[in-house]
């Protein structure tokens, strides 16, 4: 769960092979390629993940969802874990 290699200033997106299901506690994610299940533990991290593709960077997506500077490291760790498990991937910008 290290944040090494996770760049908050890059553009990110949910992998095209991931199915995301909202739940009262957040969301469940299933990756059809790796066949692994992940969880999002609250609504705000769900809002961040859902909007990744609409923002120029992960940092911007966090800010738009109301994540404060103090909370940012916690969200960066969550996103790094999602990147490690290939649930989210870097978006190529053309």
């Amino acid at each position: 769960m290290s944040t090494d290699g996770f760049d908050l200033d890059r553009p990110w997106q949910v992998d095209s092979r991931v199915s995301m299901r909202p739940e009262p506690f957040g969301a469940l994610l299933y990756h059809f390629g790796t066949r692994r299940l992940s969880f999002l533990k609250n609504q705000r991290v769900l809002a961040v993940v859902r909007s990744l593709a609409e923002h120029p960077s992960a940092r911007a997506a966090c800010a738009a969802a109301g994540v404060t500077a103090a909370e940012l490291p916690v969200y960066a760790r969550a996103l790094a874990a999602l990147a490690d498990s290939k649930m989210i991937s870097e978006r190529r910008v053309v």
Partner: protein
Amino acid sequence: MTLTRQAAPGAGSSSASPGRLVDLFQLGLDAPICLTWELTYACNLSCVHCLSSSGRRDPRELTTAECKQVIDTLERMQVFYVNIGGGEPTVRPDFWELVDYATAHHVGVKFSTNGVKITPEVAARLAASDYVDVQISLDGATAEVNDAVRGGGSYATAMRAMENLSNAGFRGFKLSVVMTRQNIPQLNAFKSIADRFGAQLRLTRLRPSGRGADVWHELHPTAEQQRELYDWLVAHGEDVLTGDSFFHLSAYGSALPGLNLCGAGRVVCLIDPVGDVYACPFAIHSQFLAGNVRDAGGFESVWRTSDLFKSLRTPDTGGACRSCGHYDSCRGGCMAAKFFTGLPLDGPDPECVQGYGEAALAGVSGSTPKPSVDHSHRRVPVTIGRRPPKRDCDENPLAGFAAS
């Protein structure tokens, strides 16, 4: 249940943190994460431990159109994938049609097979899809151990299927093994077979369900073997899948990877070939029957409103296990294993690693519950007469029979 490994990313320290996911799952989800769907009771084999007592097709099995309606419902409920089994699901003439329909409707498919239909052509087709996974069943790393349980020739069939998948470039399909007293000494050999074919090893627990109830006492691992299995699983970590079926072993110490929870009626369930919905694949008995997909409201209504599922989603009291220091690790073990060995559902698992199960089993008197449905092949004993002709020139087959 067959949950894959999970990471649990989340903003854990934030105020919205809901606590442990296992506690949330205990109370059930609006839709299953995945479910087991047995498409037919027909099977070319007669495995002695078959948990669904399969063999003969049931004339009431869901039609192709009804199966597609179920898939439509699963898509609407956002069920991620179905574990298709049987019986041998690939003997259904519409099997591939249903697989294609499910994946086209965003319902992933993992199917279990003995390999009988996995030709090189089928293997090539399967290798091309991200949304279909295959599990080949093999219960011995040698033909001798496997065929004693699954029947003559079944080892060769499974090995040929794996070779075909491997040659087609299918990486990471599953080699699925039910652990028994006879095959636990072969753990490393199973891993070698999986590695040779580029497959992932999946080990699951023998349940006393279906025909398994008749052989459980001879086949289930000894206490020493359970310890050996636990240590082996800990050493291999996430390389080896378990369908989270060994959570009762977590009482040995640290929890095994995966979700240590009975998901019956909470995050998983079973749809059987005639559309009956049971709490889990190991509990085909009227006591665990929640409804039928043909009922008004279909599967969605059964999942959300059945009294049985509602009661399974209430917090567990732990019963006789409540005072045990290991209850938080093993959660009392497997409901189906207790039920079919005649133990109370709120007591210890028959294979409780602390030994409470053995003691409880010794106190079981009278008969244990029998499965409500049995589609086993009928074994009609046929005696072939060996009656040599009375004279060398008797060619008429009726020669020697007296007319009556």
